[in-house]
């Protein structure tokens, strides 16, 4: 593991990209040299609140993916598993994305040899609807006028076409029920250390991207991109490294505080009774991959469809199948038509599992979750 500061050598990317554009340049290097078949990255469609995962195969188009999109709570793991398992792809990943990829690798659904993962440090994402609403309410700005947004120094900052910026403290937004998604507020994995490299602006000098190189593949990536003239690099100062770990630690501390506050509520939760058994949470879950053979579809768990499912026989079964591998991506919260905070209880149980076994989903280096292990050990 080593640190490096990097910056794009391409002026157009430098301008379009966030803090140095190193990520876009590294993707360009991979595509131009034929190392990968495509790059899977977020590209805004209608506006900045509409980031859509797109497979880019022409390096000219890469520029359209540059920049940060916090209002696009997407999930990459299951997309790769479903559609790109036979392709070589490079992909930009948030911590929850790489955790889902890691869990799917453990389940032999993704071949780690075939993917290049460029991690992005993540302080959290904002639901697009909440994002628009809070920009309207707290910023006095028409959400459609915003040309870019970023999260920096505890503030959610929006930029307008004329270059002016306005920031509001995330803490204040969240006190009012806006701000980051609930699962992001709880999330305590902020740097994707399982990705080949982890990039971000924490601790970086202006105009540079701070990169943590996590493995040999990541080192090759940086060396190659440098040799081919896509990026320039330099060593970060001691202060940068320290500043970065300070940002990370503050965020983790905040997340733990939210966890302690929220996990208590889960027990008394009667929200399960709202469940209508639509299976959306299962279908969207990146860890649940065996839909065709899902136990919930077995005749003995198929209740009369005109009655709502019993929570223990619906969510209980899902919990027992994968809660120990829950990566807290919050997709289930987002899709639930009855607004049940599904991820809260899954995340809580993964934390309980961690207390027992020390296994953190998508982070621990164990080959398998202990529940799948053939070892002769009790918990």
């Amino acid at each position, binding site marked *: 593991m080593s640190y490096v500061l990097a910056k794009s050598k391409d002026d157009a990317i430098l301008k379009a990209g966030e803090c140095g554009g190193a990520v876009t340049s590294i993707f360009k290097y991979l595509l131009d040299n034929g190392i990968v078949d495509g790059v899977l990255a977020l590209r805004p469609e209608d506006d900045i609140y509409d980031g859509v995962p797109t497979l880019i195969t022409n390096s000219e188009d890469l520029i359209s993916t540059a920049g940060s999109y916090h209002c696009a709570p997407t999930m990459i793991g299951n997309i790769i598993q479903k559609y790109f398992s036979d392709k070589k792809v490079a992909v930009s990943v948030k911590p929850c994305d790489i955790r889902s990829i890691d869990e799917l690798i453990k389940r032999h659904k993704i071949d780690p040899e075939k993917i290049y993962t460029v991690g992005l440090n993540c302080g959290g994402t904002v639901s697009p609807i909440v994002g628009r609403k809070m920009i309207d309410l707290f910023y006095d700005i028409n959400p459609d006028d915003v040309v870019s947004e970023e999260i920096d120094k505890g503030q959610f900052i929006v930029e307008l076409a004329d270059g002016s910026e306005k920031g509001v403290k995330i803490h204040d937004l969240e006190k009012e029920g806006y701000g980051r998604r609930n699962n992001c507020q709880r999330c305590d994995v902020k740097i994707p250390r399982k990705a080949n490299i982890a990039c971000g602006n924490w601790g970086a000098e202006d105009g540079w991207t701070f990169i943590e190189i996590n493995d040999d593949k990541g080192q090759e990536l940086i060396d190659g991109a440098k040799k081919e003239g896509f990026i320039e690099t330099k060593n970060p100062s001691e202060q940068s490294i320290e500043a970065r770990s300070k940002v990370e630690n503050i965020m983790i501390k905040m997340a733990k505080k939210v966890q302690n506050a929220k996990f208590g509520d*889960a*027990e008394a*939760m*009667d929200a*399960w*009774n709202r469940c209508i058994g639509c299976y959306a949470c299962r279908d969207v879950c990146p860890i649940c991959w065996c839909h065709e053979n899902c*136990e919930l579809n077995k005749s*003995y*768990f198929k209740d009369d469809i005109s009655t709502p499912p*019993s*929570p*223990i*026989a619906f*969510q*209980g*079964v899902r*919990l*027992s199948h994968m*809660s*120990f591998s829950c990566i807290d991506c919050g997709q289930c919260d987002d899709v639930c038509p009855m607004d049940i905070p599904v991820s809260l*209880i899954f995340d*809580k*149980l993964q934390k*309980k*599992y961690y207390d*027992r076994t020390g296994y953190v989903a998508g982070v621990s280096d164990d080959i398998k979750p*202990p*529940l799948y292990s*053939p*070892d*002769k*050990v*009790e*918990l």
Partner: protein
Amino acid sequence: MSDEIKIVGLLCNWCCYGGADTAGTARMQYPPNVRIIRVMCSGRINPSMIFKAFEEGADGVFVGGCHIGDCHYDAGNYKWSRRAKIVQDIIEEFGIEKERFRYEWISASEGEKFQRTMEEFHKTLSKLGPLELD
């Protein structure tokens, strides 16, 4: 009232079921509330089975397996023991007291342990009363 308590007992073929048999042939008295389902190994029991039992109206679920190290299939009871912890964690979240779920290692010769366990479990459940899932 305690007679209405329903216990589902999932017992492993090689040990605990033998234990229940031993208790029976020795005419040891234990509560008749337990409905025994014989399975080949505690390692084939899924958490879903426990949940299904509760959903279908069981007031308590008991699982019996071989002593650790004695599994007929080498490591089935280790697997079950890890699953059992997850079951405990999960049922709590759904408002089912964790005392309503119990698992124990009972060998085929331990008829007396089976009898004692059933009596204790029945007593615990009688105190808790019937399970009401909302």
